[in-house]
């Protein structure tokens, strides 16, 4: 059962396409995994469609703006085009991720963007990361934590969104499982860790992580590792 969801605002801007590329991927992947958010997305789409197309009569301002709209010419152009052949039906996406001998089934949004997943690199301890190149200023990263792995306590200068693709991780407040979507702003300190299970997450950061405790403060100069 998914406990943590994107906000209504995230879902709305996912529907209109007005989030950063990394966040569109995050919210889209959550929606793939969450039937409740699928229903919300559909509802938002219906509301948008109603707003765009619902009026029986075009209001004056639109009618005026359409003075120069030569619908007949465009209609004739469209009808005159030769019919497009349907695209090749055999097109298949690689929908699996293989890492450390384990296979992970990727939700649709990630599978369609499989070609954007870069090389895996080992970080400290039993953690691996791979960048997902989607353009935009914030950074989308797969992070894999083996069992019994802890990320040093850290805050973020900006926002951090984390989505569990497979497995479980814990922090001071809760446990997070498949499909859970957590959005943290810069004020939250936390120490994510895995226990008996490993965990594959997708993470979007809009500023480098800032480690706050003990020896791991020494890692701060390397936080660019997370942020490449």
């Amino acid at each position, binding site marked *: 059962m998914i406990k943590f969801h994107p906000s209504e605002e995230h879902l709305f801007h996912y529907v209109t396409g007005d989030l950063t590329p990394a966040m569109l991927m995050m919210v889209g992947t959550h929606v793939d995994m969450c039937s409740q958010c699928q229903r919300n997305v559909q509802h938002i789409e219906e509301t948008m469609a109603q707003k765009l197309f619902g009026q029986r009569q075009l209001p004056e301002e639109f009618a005026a703006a359409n003075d120069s709209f030569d619908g007949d010419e465009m209609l004739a152009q*469209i*009808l005159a085009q030769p019919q497009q052949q349907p695209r090749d039906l055999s097109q298949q996406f690689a929908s699996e991720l293989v890492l450390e001998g384990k296979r992970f089934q990727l939700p649709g949004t990630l599978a369609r963007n499989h070609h954007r997943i870069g090389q895996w690199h080992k970080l400290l301890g039993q953690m691996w990361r791979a960048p997902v190149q989607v*353009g935009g200023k914030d950074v989308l990263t797969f992070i894999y934590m083996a069992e019994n792995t802890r990320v040093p306590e850290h805050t973020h200068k900006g926002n951090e969104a984390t989505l569990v693709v497979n497995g479980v991780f814990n922090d001071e407040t809760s446990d997070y499982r498949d499909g859970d979507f957590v959005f943290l702003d810069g004020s939250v300190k936390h120490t994510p860790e895995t226990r008996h299970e490993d965990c594959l997450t997708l993470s979007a950061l809009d500023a480098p992580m800032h480690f706050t405790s003990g020896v791991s403060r020494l890692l701060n100069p390397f936080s660019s590792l997370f942020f490449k």
Partner: protein
Amino acid sequence: MQTVIETKTKRNTMSSAQPDDPDHAAALLALVATERSRHAFSELFRYFAPRLKAYATRQFGNEQTAMDLVQETMTNVWNKAHLFKPDRGSASTWIFTIARNIRFDFLRKNKHRQHDLSADELWPVLAEQNDSLDDDYALDDDLLMQQLAVYCEELPKAQRTVIELIYVAGKSQQEVADALGIPLGTVKSRTRLALQKLRELIQSDD
């Protein structure tokens, strides 16, 4: 048969049914998909194109880009009507998602950046194979549908239309009767004859 269908469609236009009625819009899309009915498309175009233009003008503040969005959206409606799934949502919602995708790609195209996401990769509204990733059996289904499509080509056009509306567009027999303006009994008998014929075709191929 074509004449009867066209006449009825015209009569619908004259009556109060407008593309803002979801059932009517869905029936028009089904006619575009199965018959490539220019009449049904024109009716959709006259309703949706000016409203898309108003939306796109607000979004882009640029006349030419707005017109491009309208043209590209409606071209997709004309060519891809078979991808509309009535059980997934209304015709206007489907057209909104097409316009949303085109807007998304227009906005990125202007920035000329590498690695940029494309709308199709986020929202596969116009993918021919929408369910493949969610459904392990989709491949077999597709194969089956492709084979069936070949057999359907053999049917008389009137029967094929009924079969496609019921089994591809997911309409009830009553909805098909309404959309085509023919009695329910005719729909039933055409369905029965078509299925009988399909069964013969499949068996004779074995």
